């Protein structure tokens, strides 16, 4: 079985982002970038499945500018066998990314596609579902547990009301929740070995698809600031303030 894992390069989750003064976006120059956290869960799960003898090959794919290749290199260091970098410039919407990955799926013919449930920069939570629709494959979103059976998966999904388990026949798309597993760190020897693993570079223009943005970002601004609060000396004062000043209890 072959697993394709999609990874995205985003601003590191610990960074306090800054909005550009001209309202055109968020400052990304000289800001620490990393793999999107739930994508780390996706690659970890694929590697675990391979270690359990249930997958033979893991292909990591990313779509984006030159530096996005770092995320593929990291996936290779964690255990992917081969990388694909679809080179693009500028902003991409989930619909465009899903069309690009659809092309790669048609070429690579994986049995499963894994990815994170959402990217922590655009917070869209769309790409996996869109890809699944384009391929007419089943989708298992927000996965927190995956059991591989003969020709299907049993996936436990995180839903608002609790948990839900579904069966999806292979081939299928799975979008991973942070709770799926604990991603491992790449060891130095594995990072060195990953440098020798192949990364195929593809120009998006060679795929023959329309990836023009459909959504204009007119303005990016800081959210309204909360006004500074006070520190209370003790519990009695806190309860008095909540009762008499804020009038919320």
């Amino acid at each position, binding site marked *: 079985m072959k697993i394709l894992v999609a990874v995205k390069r985003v601003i590191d989750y610990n960074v306090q982002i800054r909005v550009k003064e001209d309202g055109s976006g968020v400052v990304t120059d000289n800001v620490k970038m990393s793999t999107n956290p739930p994508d780390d869960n996706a690659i970890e799960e694929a590697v675990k499945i391979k270690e359990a003898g249930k997958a033979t090959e893991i292909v990591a794919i990313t779509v984006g500018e030159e530096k996005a290749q770092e995320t593929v290199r990291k996936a290779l260091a964690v255990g992917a066998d081969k990388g694909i970098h679809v080179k693009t410039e500028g902003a991409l919407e989930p619909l465009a990314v899903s069309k690009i990955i659809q092309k790669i799926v048609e070429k690579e013919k994986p049995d499963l596609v894994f990815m994170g449930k959402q990217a922590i920069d655009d917070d869209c939570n769309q790409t996996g579902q*869109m890809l*699944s*629709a384009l391929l007419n494959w089943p*989708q298992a979103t927000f996965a927190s547990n995956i059991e591989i059976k003969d020709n299907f998966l049993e996936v436990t999904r995180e839903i608002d009301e*609790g948990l839900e388990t579904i069966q999806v*026949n292979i081939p299928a798309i799975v979008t991973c929740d942070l709770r799926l597993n604990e991603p491992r760190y790449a060891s130095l020897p594995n990072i060195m070995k990953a440098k020798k693993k192949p990364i195929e570079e593809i120009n998006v223009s060679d795929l023959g698809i329309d990836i023009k943005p459909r959504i*204009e970002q007119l303005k990016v*601004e800081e959210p309204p600031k909360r006004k500074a609060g*006070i520190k209370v000396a003790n519990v009695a004062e806190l309860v008095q*303030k909540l009762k008499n000043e804020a009038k919320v209890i």
Partner: protein
Amino acid sequence: MAVLLIAEHNNKELRPFTLNAATAASLIDADVHAVIIGQNSETAAKKLSELPLIKKVISIEAPHYENFTAENFAPAIVKLAGNYSHIVCSANTFGKNLMPRIAAHLDTSQVSDIIKVISPDTFLRPIYAGNAFATVKTNDAKKCITIRPTSFEPCESSGGTATIEKGEAGEEFSNTKFIKREEIKSDRPELGTARIVVSGGRGMQSGDNFKLITEVADKLGAAIGASRAAVDAGYISNDHQVGQTGKVVVPDLYIAIGISGAIQHLAGMKESKVIVAINKDGEAPIFSVADYGLEADLFEALPQFMAELNKLNTIQK
């Protein structure tokens, strides 16, 4: 053209956030139709027809719609889409799972989790865990939108008399099968809509210690929340998680106990009207958003908090 609202329900009742989504839909265009897809969902369809904002209800029933599988729902909605300029749904796990599938079938770039309708094609939405707000204009002819329910007031739930029309069911998608759902039942208010939320974090140190939070929540008639750290440590189940990857809450009062206030947690609660932080680390980032901060050991402060609450002769619920 009219707006199509996808109702969220459990085959018996409408889910409350459908009322918030209806408000948002009506801000896009006053002509709001609602579609309800399910099995034996007549009662919920009737309730939907009583929302004064809804002009028409389309009810689609079939056994394979019982468990809300996106692969079954999406084609049924795509079939209706020709008559509508916008298709909208709540941005909770139901809508997040379903809407992108519809959007891709329609070759539309979806706008997720809007918090404001600026005009029928321009919306405000949070990005980067709510640390920036983006104003976006969609140029697609057909617009697929999900709505952050806590950013819109629920609409009136009675007085309307919309007609209910039967819609045509689509075929079953055979490659996805529902197996089971484990819903967590609770007598407490629902986290997403509660007036007061009491949340615990890693500082609670154990699942047993969460009973200190349960006591306070019971006293205040509050829902219980948690940070991701508390859920991952197994102190409490995942449906309590507040934050970028959990639920977004906007209660009148949010009490954060033993929660440091990571960016991802703040994304889920910083629009709360009044925020209280109880934490022994005076430098914790949660204090930068708290209206009232108490720097104290929670294991001393919580029993005192209960004692003070017990002294009050009345508590608003």
